[in-house]
């Protein structure tokens, strides 16, 4: 039997998620022994023609060309998995969705007229059908291995969509909210990182995007109770997963123009 083929695609992104595949150092040879890596330009300039059994898609759609290209990727991919916050939620570049992109380009570029871009940054699923979304900014190495392994044997990946709090408690972290009053997005954030930040006494930054059933009002109440200003609460939800509908809702529950009274 031929080995299944794997292709890696890049859209608007920083490449950090696809590099996670190279970070699988100990397992990389095992992956290469089970999968034909047919297209992965971060690793090799050799590109084998499609169609491909599995496509890992990184990045968001920010140009008209990319909106066309993702359709072709979909057509030549049996299974399409998005990797990371850009591909799954629009990435940090989705901040443009709340602003005027022409104003941005006029400030950033010497020749804004060279820039051809869409007014929004949107996730892959807004354009084509996606078979599985792997969250994170960047994605977690173990979770990437789990998805590839599960696809190889045809089982469902073990990627729970519950809160980061599960991982904190399973790991034995002391809750930074209850014990220290530290602002933390853990209760509304998708598990997957292994509760990395709280393990180092920091609040969760929400890199993995919204958990399955986030309660926006309750989370904003929690952040207010830690003394966070409204504008800071808005900013907390407008980072890597700014375009995730649940995080948009969270940022809208807070009142950005209200300053802390004290």
């Amino acid at each position, binding site marked *: 039997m031929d080995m299944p083929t794997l292709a890696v695609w890049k859209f608007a992104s920083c490449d950090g998620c696809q590099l996670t595949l190279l970070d699988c150092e100990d397992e990389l040879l095992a*992956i290469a022994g*089970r999968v034909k890596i047919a297209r992965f330009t971060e690793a090799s300039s050799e590109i084998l023609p499609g169609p491909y059994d599995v496509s890992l898609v990184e990045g968001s759609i920010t140009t008209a060309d990319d909106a066309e290209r993702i359709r072709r990727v979909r057509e030549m991919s049996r299974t399409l998995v998005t990797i990371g916050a850009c591909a799954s939620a629009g990435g940090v570049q989705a901040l443009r969705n709340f602003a005027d992109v022409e104003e941005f380009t006029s400030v950033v570029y010497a020749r804004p007229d060279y820039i051809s871009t869409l007014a929004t940054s949107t996730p892959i699923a807004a354009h084509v059908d996606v078979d599985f979304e792997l969250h994170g900014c960047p994605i977690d190495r173990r979770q990437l291995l789990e998805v590839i392994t599960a696809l190889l044997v045809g089982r469902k990946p*073990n990627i729970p969509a*519950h809160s980061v709090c*599960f991982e904190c*408690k399973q*790991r034995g972290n002391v809750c930074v*909210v209850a014990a220290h009053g530290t602002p933390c997005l853990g209760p509304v954030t998708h598990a997957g990182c292994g509760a990395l930040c709280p393990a180092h006494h920091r609040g969760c930054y929400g890199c993995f995007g919204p958990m399955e059933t986030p309660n926006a009002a309750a989370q904003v109440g929690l952040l207010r109770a830690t003394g966070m200003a409204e504008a800071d609460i808005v900013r907390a939800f407008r980072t890597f997963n700014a375009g995730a509908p649940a995080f948009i809702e969270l940022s809208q529950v807070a009142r950005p123009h209200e300053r802390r009274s004290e």
Partner: protein
Amino acid sequence: MTGTATPAPRLIDIDGLPALFEALRGRGYTVVGPTVRDGAIVVAELASAAELPFGWGVETEAGRYRLRERSDTAAFGHSAGPQSWKTVLHPARAKLWSADRVTGSAGTSIVETGAAEPPRYALLGVRPCDVRAIGILDQVLTGGRHADPVYRGRRDGAFVIAVECTEPGATCFCTSMGGGPGADSGFDLALTELTDGGDHRFVVRTGTAAGAGVLADVPSRAADEATVRHAATAVAEAAGHMGRTMPTQGLPRLLADSRESPHWDDVASRCLTCGNCTMVCPTCFCTTTEDVTDLTGDHAERWRVWDSCFALDFSYLHGGSVRTSGQSRYRQWITHKLGTWHDQFGSSGCVGCGRCIAWCPAGIDITQEVSTLASMLEQAAADEDKP
């Protein structure tokens, strides 16, 4: 544990604790007990008595837990922390088995590997509420026809040293749940810590022959009657200092009658469905299984992992989850804990340790929710009686 005629209480001085550790270690136990880490008193493996949280107390409130320095050197002057003994006896992750596909001359076969030899823990500093919680886990996990092998192995090997409670916290309500600050069974040794007059000592009672054996290896002296009475009084007085009260009258009925209560909407507006309450609860026992394969497909493992009724996947059947709303998930948790647990296991699932109150990031208070449900039902009944 086999009961014996109760020997007279003994006294161990604070200097005797290292000998207690030695006696336990000499019997092959790993000592697990309270220690300060990351701004809380956690349960962890202890290398020596010096790691106990001497001089540390805690202040708890709904959604809040803070360490505070005590005016004395008490090692057990704190109420429940973020972990319970569940983390030791019913661990968050446990490998149930692994299997390898081995291809040899006789073809392909599956070689299974069972669980490893269970570790033997001495649990030092188990509060009476947590002694009861362990009793409830015993009933749930080993009381039926199919005992849980991981729990049974760890439980059978465990040595329990209870420490009675003389300072309940603001989120404590063990007396409401039929317990109390004193320990009368379920332990190998029971200590009561005294620090008055700068004399740091423990009144020790033995609960089992194993306990008596350990105590024999620790320097101790007969406890005089005044000290025993003094310790008993401190424990008895603690019963009057519970920070919370649970209205337990007809609780299972109350929850059954509250099935359609509008109050679930109110709780759900505050509930993050984050699962913290179930994770810190000393009796919440639910798990899920994860089947793990490696890249070659020749090695598989089955792991058991803590789960929570607050996760969507918990009630996932073909086609979707049964309990999708926050309302239904909170209702499920509290109704099982305080109501249907009686039908299933013959007791309440709550021991009144208060962990779910202190460690809820939204500060949801189970005693307050029950009070509200009760008054709403009363009000509804009163309204119905009006002509």
